[in-house]
């Protein structure tokens, strides 16, 4: 069971890395806008013409 002393820190470190990612995301303004990203992902760059047929 001593292996749990490997798994717990490892899980915590993993979580810490993600926490860093979260802090970075918040502080760099990733989440300031929670509206337009969902709309922008819908727009294909110039795909509107190329994918015309598929979208029909």
């Amino acid at each position, binding site marked *: *069971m001593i*292996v749990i002393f490997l798994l717990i820190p*490892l899980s915590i470190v993993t979580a810490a890395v993600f926490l860093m990612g979260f802090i970075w995301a918040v502080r760099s303004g990733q989440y300031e806008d929670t509206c337009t*990203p*969902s709309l922008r*992902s819908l727009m294909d760059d110039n795909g509107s013409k190329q994918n015309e047929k*598929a979208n029909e």
Partner: protein
Amino acid sequence: MMNAAVINPELQAPAARASAVETFRYDNRIVRAFAIATVVWGLVGMSAGLLLAVELFFPGANLDWQFVTFGRLRPVHTNAVVFAFVGNGMFTGIYYSLQRLCKARMFSDKLSWLNFWGWNAIIVAAAITLPMGLTTSKEYAELEWPIKIAIGVVWVAFTINLLGTIVQRREKHIYVAIWFYIATALTVAILHIVNGLEVPVSLWKGYSIYAGVQDALVQWWYGHNAVAFFLTTPYLGLMYYYLPKAANRPIFSYRLSIIHFWALIFIYIWAGPHHLLYTALPDWAQSLGMVFSIMLVAPSWGGMLNGLLTLRGAWDKVRQDPVLKFMVGAVTAYGMATLEGPTLAIKTVNSLSHYTDWTIAHVHTAALGWNGLLTFSVLYWLFPRLYRTQLWSTRLANYHFWIALLGMTFYVIPMYISGITEGMMWKQFSEDGFLQYPNFLQTVQQIIPFYQLRAIGGSLYILGVWLMAYNLWRTARAGQFAPEEEVRAASYRSQAGAPQDAAFTHRWLESKPILLTGLALIAVLIGGLIEIIPMIVIKENVPTISSVRPYTGLELLGRDIYIREGCVGCHSQMIRPFRSETERYGEYSKAGEFVYDHPFLWGSKRTGPDLQRIGGKYPDAWHYNHLDDPRATSPVSIMPRYPWLFTQKLDTTSLPARISALRRVGVPYPAGYESKAPKELEQQAAKVVGNLAAGLIKAPPDREIIAVIAYLQRLGTDIKAAPPAAASPATGPRAIK
């Protein structure tokens, strides 16, 4: 990008900034390659599953051919659907959506193709080695160490490609799907490495560095998170990209999707021990796993509702569009499976459901429903776009949906009935306080009809995939493939707010020396842990039960054949502390009994009875006859025959290598035991042959069957033996009397 990077756009005139438009191309070839592999491996993996399903009610279906017995084929099926079908499906979806979400081509074409060919070569290697019985026997981590290393290399290539593309993005915002992809890449790498640590014996055999309880805990920490971070997070990423795309409306709540992501990844990693409830794992670890598993309902359902509510006001589209139908099916299945999972993780429920077909029903709701249907929807959506045409037949795709749904129903419902039936029959006591069904075969006989129904369900599901393959092929033929898609987008640095952002990460870190030190410490700590922990782990394997001894040479070889044949796929070696189990199987299992088990063989399914206390229960001759033809000793048994164990010679040449490898992972074989073991092996084999002769069976002593019998007769007997005399050291295998 390089040119623009040199000049600080802040210093330029606004006109110049606005003109910083770059032209680049999306790589569609790699997407197509993964998409085709997805369909092919899907058919292969599911067909293997169907054969397994048939073998369960028609045990002769392997035609007595050792390469396709249930035990050997099961890992082929699970690996093929998880890593080949869903794996390629995941890469298909990621390689298409990532480029578009980042407005950038994949970081490196070379890495993309290394990812594709490497991954598929690994799958081919798996399809060859697993039927040959080259397996670690750890679920979803069966591949032996050379292939494991290859997986690590390819996965790193994928991760670099993913992160590189994100760094080169032209879109400041990292869309939520990408976060799911990042979590997948990083976490799978860690899980794979920690669980895969082995000491090699030969090119195709290694022993897990962990033993018994520890191996079980690491395995299910991995196993559960393989479900979480291989089958769930990447597919949630795909859902967040493709569902809004297909519905042509934004996700219901982008804010909820962000909460979904962060909540999910912080909780998921702790839930693993729910696979080991009521086993010899310490109770507090079990409770921890249970609590976190129940907490998982919240983020999971948040995500499901977010997906379904995206379609509010668009349900008319669902009626016509097969892509949306498949997505609704997938997301609904996700919701069902993520409610059921936490339910099964409650100890009380688990005491009934564990080892039964209920688990099989649960995983297939998730695999056929969530992963399968979502993959199909993505493929149906992608092919017309890759080939600049319309789907060849919407009607056929709609048929596929209903056939798939029918197939799932015929699969899952019989498995629920069978699972609950098994669970209740195993636990049922008569009024006199005896087991109502003391013969395990009574419970097997009862569920055969459900196994047959399940095979019908599986066949229907596969029929649907064939329809899809044909439809996609016709679509491809009708259209014109666009290998490269030219796009124009504003460069990253020309966008407002970007420069600060680009320099942000490092500036922020540099301004925080304490934080930087902390991070460095964590990095060093990880390295140190990987170095130090195996040593501590080994040290702890000093038996707490003094009569527990390492396996003898013959038993060890027998155990490795048991592993090769995949016996663990149907037989557990873990008696839980319930009266119904101790009555049926004997004394409940104790952690101290497994300290020399590299790997652990607790199993997670009882298609046949538990074997923890099989040692000494029947005479050697019974095992001999049973393995030759299970129905000779147990009339309605669904176990396959093992005739090759009687013809194949036992390979004793590798015994010294096996013993020294095990000593390196902490099994206390005395020094020089390698040279003594072959002699001892012969003596023990002669003893088994003698026992068989007493049962009027004439058997040569050098066949594999002798080793298997020796192993089975040893199982679970150590705690009954008298502890060694105080004078003799508690090491070394028990002398053969």
